[in-house]
């Protein structure tokens, strides 16, 4: 196995790929005592959130910090990202009903008030869309240069009857993606001056709890795994699902929905859309008999029009994600980390 964590934390440790997972495992989870929950889905599972049994329901909790740069980007901003990110983490654990959120802000001295108001207006709009509410928060200001602009941290709390882990796949299960991939990651890359790309590259950031609710209503217990592919993109999400479920996933590359603009930008930059972040999509593992029904339900939802079956699970090469390219086959390697930092 590869060596341990380097002596100093580098940007790769925040990029969502293998380096970050190693850091979380070896320093965070291990440092906190291994995280063995007495029941439910806890720290050791390193899932999108935690699910704790409470009476005859489950309490689902998640938290995220948001450091995206630039804070205003085509398709959204840090506020929208904060709400959507947390609502979506709850949703893919099975908690799709009205969520309760916290929002803490750490603001750099000199940050324009008008921008702050814009961020909070956006937080509000996103909450309304999701049927969620920010009920408490915190505000800190740090000196100029001690923090970059603004950082938001959100925590979300929800309830569900049945938590859906990202580890429930079995051979034969079908993989569905709820829409086009790589939109958010590409939008952020394009928004950075250095790339000078013009085109309609916009983030897909959106709360998808309504979409997930529709999928669960159609599929019920047939939905066995869900994950939102944020940093590290669909590739990361599939790897985690395959690894935790101990199956391999075979993906039909041509079936993965990608917007032409994202494809073009990806070609130009030599980057794979499969490793670029999505902020309004879900990867869903479904029992084969439930797949058609779930797909139809997702496509009927405005945020799921481009949903597609993209793959299936097999009982070999556990943990691998295999891509059928149309010309041959290859292993889809787990991303080391995203090409640029500060994507979410």
């Amino acid at each position, binding site marked *: 196995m590869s060596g341990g964590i380097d002596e100093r934390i580098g940007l790769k440790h925040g990029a969502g790929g293998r380096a970050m997972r190693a850091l979380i495992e070896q320093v965070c989870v291990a440092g906190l005592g291994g995280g063995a929950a007495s029941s439910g889905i806890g720290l050791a599972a390193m899932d999108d959130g935690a699910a704790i049994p409470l009476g005859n329901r489950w309490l689902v909790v998640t938290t995220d910090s948001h450091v995206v740069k630039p804070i205003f980007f085509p398709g959204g901003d840090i506020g929208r990202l904060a709400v959507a990110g947390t609502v979506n983490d709850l949703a893919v654990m099975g908690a799709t009903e009205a969520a309760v959120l916290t929002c803490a802000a750490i603001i750099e001295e000199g940050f324009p008030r008008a921008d702050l108001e814009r961020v909070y207006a956006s937080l509000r709009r996103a909450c309304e869309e999701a049927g969620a509410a920010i009920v408490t928060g915190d505000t800190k200001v740090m000196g100029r240069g001690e923090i970059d602009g603004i950082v938001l941290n959100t925590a979300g709390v929800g309830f569900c009857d049945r938590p859906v882990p990202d580890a429930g796949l079995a051979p034969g299960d079908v993989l569905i993606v709820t829409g086009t991939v790589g939109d958010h990651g590409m939008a952020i890359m394009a928004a950075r001056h250095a790339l000078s*790309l*013009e*085109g309609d590259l916009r983030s897909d950031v959106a709360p998808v709890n309504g979409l997930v609710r529709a999928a669960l209503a159609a599929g019920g217990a047939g939905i066995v795994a869900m994950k939102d592919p944020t940093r590290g993109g669909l590739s990361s999400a599939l790897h985690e699902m395959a690894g935790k479920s101990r199956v391999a996933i075979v993906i039909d590359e041509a079936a993965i929905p990608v917007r032409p603009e994202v494809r073009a*930008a990806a070609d*130009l930059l030599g980057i794979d859309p499969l490793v670029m972040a999505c902020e309004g999509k879900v990867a869903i593992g479904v029992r084969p008999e439930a797949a058609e029904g779930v797909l139809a339900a997702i496509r009927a939802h405005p945020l799921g029009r481009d949903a597609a079956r993209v793959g299936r699970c097999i009982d070999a090469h556990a943990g691998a994600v295999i891509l059928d390219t*149309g010309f041959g086959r290859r292993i889809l390697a787990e991303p080391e980390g995203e090409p640029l930092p500060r994507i979410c």
Partner: protein
Amino acid sequence: MCLGVPGKVVAIDGNCATVDFWGVRRQVLLDVVDEPVAVGDYVLNHVGYAIRRIPESEIGETLALFEELLAQGDAADLMAGDVRGEIAGTGAAPDGDS
């Protein structure tokens, strides 16, 4: 580092072309391209410079080149014959089958 990627010139301002890569556009410099470039031409871009004006006629010729290679298969080579038939049958929009 970026591969050489082809795109279509949609605007020119001095030695700077705006090139469309079928979805996104980027500025590409024309300082070292081999022939004069006009709006509507195709160019190959490498790290911000156009290194080749791709003649439209070459596009059809490349396809012909591929066809020639395929046509050289033995008459007895049934597989190649099948593929040629498939290509002829499907015309302009070959689809992955099965």
